[in-house]
């Protein structure tokens, strides 16, 4: 017998005890995936949450770090990497193979992680495919569809086929991960890529959907929350338009799943991609949600071991979803880390996190708007998460970021992997502040204070 310890499935960070809300398993989501009006976290609760993040106790350039770059990647609470360590120390083995106890234990941890993360987004367990990240999840759909277009998957895969005359629709708001895979799919199949443009403020022009979604449209890919502007999409409008013509819907949940309660069934989308590392989880793990009947009909993307049933030298039969999309040895520790992150978020409650970040986002948007010589981007009346891009007039974003860094404030500068959106906004690059559940009001105040002295420093 191996000396197996108590299962490391739930290692909760101490700071959480006592923080609960009424957002539990039978939570209700509105159709747009917006949070119910829940009480935001209190300042005291946020302080206790922050204490779970070792890195936020560190200093950068001799001052306390103010991390406002969670849109790029979130920080991780101790319990997440301790869970990974615990897995390696106690249960490491290859999953779905081997009869020994460690292999059984590892497989259980791996599949329990899937169950937990699937439940977190309102999906059934076999509707969640592990991927490296959201980018890989979106590419999975793109390449599976081109395989279908080559005839793979037979008649069952007919609805994934694309060819000349067919159209793929995306938006001008997308980051490159939800644009380039569709450009490439169009190149490979001869289909045409179209997009919903934005206004000069960066608001989606929903009124054009009726015109842009036609019988030719086979797939509609759109973001739930803009990674640059932080604005929340009215997903219902896209889903309704796509349903009318029988087009598949792909939702990019990279910036929504970490910050808002998300229920894929309420949203009624066909696919959704998201990344673990933006939601307190480790890097190297993400997921694709897909409706069961779609995933089971779609030809695989990556092929090899672990995704087959019978193989001879000429051909192979494939497993049903999710295994048919998980070729090769998988990222077991990372799935466990992500499941632990999800437990952490669940215990606090996504509704309360969303309410707190809405508050921080409003503080950012209004606070930055008031600073002389600084301009915020994004429509003023939009619903947004705690993500706000801005420009200090006369100072390049790279220099703004450097100045803020000297005060310990971490923000992102550049085009944020969304060059077309920046072009539409009339700039090459912006500076972006983005929050998460561990950000305090003091963090926002530190940014606002620093921003008010940038122009003076650069002599503008």
């Amino acid at each position, binding site marked *: 017998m191996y000396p197996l310890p108590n299962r490391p499935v739930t290692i909760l960070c101490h700071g959480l005890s006592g923080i609960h809300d009424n957002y539990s398993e039978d939570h209700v989501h509105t159709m747009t995936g917006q949070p119910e009006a829940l009480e935001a976290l209190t300042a005291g609760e946020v302080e206790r949450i922050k204490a779970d993040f070792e890195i936020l106790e560190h200093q950068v*350039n001799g001052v306390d770090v103010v991390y406002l770059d969670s849109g790029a990647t979130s920080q991780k609470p101790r319990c997440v990497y301790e869970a990974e360590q615990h897995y390696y120390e106690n249960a490491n083995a290859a999953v779905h193979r081997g009869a020994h106890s460690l292999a059984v234990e590892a497989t259980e941890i791996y599949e329990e992680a899937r169950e937990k993360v699937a439940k977190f987004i309102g999906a059934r367990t076999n509707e969640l495919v592990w991927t490296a990240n959201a980018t890989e999840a979106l590419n999975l759909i793109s390449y599976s569809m081109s395989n279908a277009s080559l005839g793979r998957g037979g008649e069952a895969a007919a609805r994934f086929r694309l060819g000349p005359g067919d159209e793929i629709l995306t938006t001008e708001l997308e980051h490159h991960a939800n644009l380039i895979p569709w450009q490439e799919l169009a190149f490979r199949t001869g289909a045409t890529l179209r997009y919903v443009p934005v206004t000069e403020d960066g608001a989606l022009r929903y009124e054009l959907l009726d015109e842009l979604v036609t019988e030719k449209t086979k797939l509609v890919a759109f973001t739930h929350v803009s990674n640059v502007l932080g604005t929340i999409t009215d997903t219902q409008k896209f889903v309704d338009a796509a349903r009318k013509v029988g087009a598949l819907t792909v939702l990019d949940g990279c910036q929504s799943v970490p910050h808002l309660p998300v229920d894929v069934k309420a949203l009624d989308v066909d696919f959704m991609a998201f990344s673990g590392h933006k939601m307190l989880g480790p890097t190297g793990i993400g997921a694709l949600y897909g409706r069961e009947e779609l995933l089971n009909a779609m030809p695989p993307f990556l092929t090899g071991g672990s995704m087959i049933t019978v193989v001879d030298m000429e051909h192979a039969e494939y497993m049903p979803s999710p295994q048919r999309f998980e070729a090769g040895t998988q990222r077991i520790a990372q799935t466990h880390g992500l499941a632990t992150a999800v437990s952490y978020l669940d215990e606090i409650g996504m509704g309360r996190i969303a309410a707190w970040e809405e508050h921080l986002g409003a503080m950012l948007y209004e606070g930055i708007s008031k600073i002389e010589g600084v301009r915020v981007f994004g429509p003023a009346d939009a619903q947004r998460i705690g993500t706000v891009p801005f420009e200090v007039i006369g*100072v*390049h*974003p*790279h*220099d703004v970021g*450097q*100045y803020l860094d*000297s005060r310990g404030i971490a923000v992102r*500068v*550049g*085009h944020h992997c969304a*060059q077309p959106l*920046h072009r539409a906004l009339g700039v*090459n*690059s912006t500076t972006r502040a983005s929050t998460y559940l561990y950000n305090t009001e003091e963090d926002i105040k530190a940014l606002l204070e620093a921003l008010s002295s940038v122009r003076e*420093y*650069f*002599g503008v």
Partner: protein
Amino acid sequence: MNELDQLYQQVILDHSKRRIGSPLVETTEGLLHGESHQHNPICGDQIRVRVELDDQEHFTSMSWEGDGCSISMASASVLAEMLPELTKEEFLGKRDYFREMMRSKGNFQPDEEVLEDAAAFVGVSKFPARVKCAMLAWVAAEVAMHEARK
């Protein structure tokens, strides 16, 4: 001086505003001229540099246009001021010396006789993420030099 002030020395901030050699100027008949467009995909900074040389392989002018941070724009300005009358070989020598300074992580005493205003960029070498900004114009000028034709 703190590290930020070493990075943003007054010479650099001044050059980033003066932008010597910008915008681009028309080429002169009878001279060799070459052009290069360089782009830093990480931050989106870009620069177009045009150089002219005479038959003795002396630079006669550098003009440019660009969009970027104060470090990249100041570096182009400094180079445009320095380049006229240098030979190809002298430019490449200074380019090597400048690059050595950029890779020094701050452990460098630049010879101002060699680098003139470009010596002020020594503070940039402590910020590895900004070295590319400082090098952008130098890379563009070198490519433009190799491209130079009548």
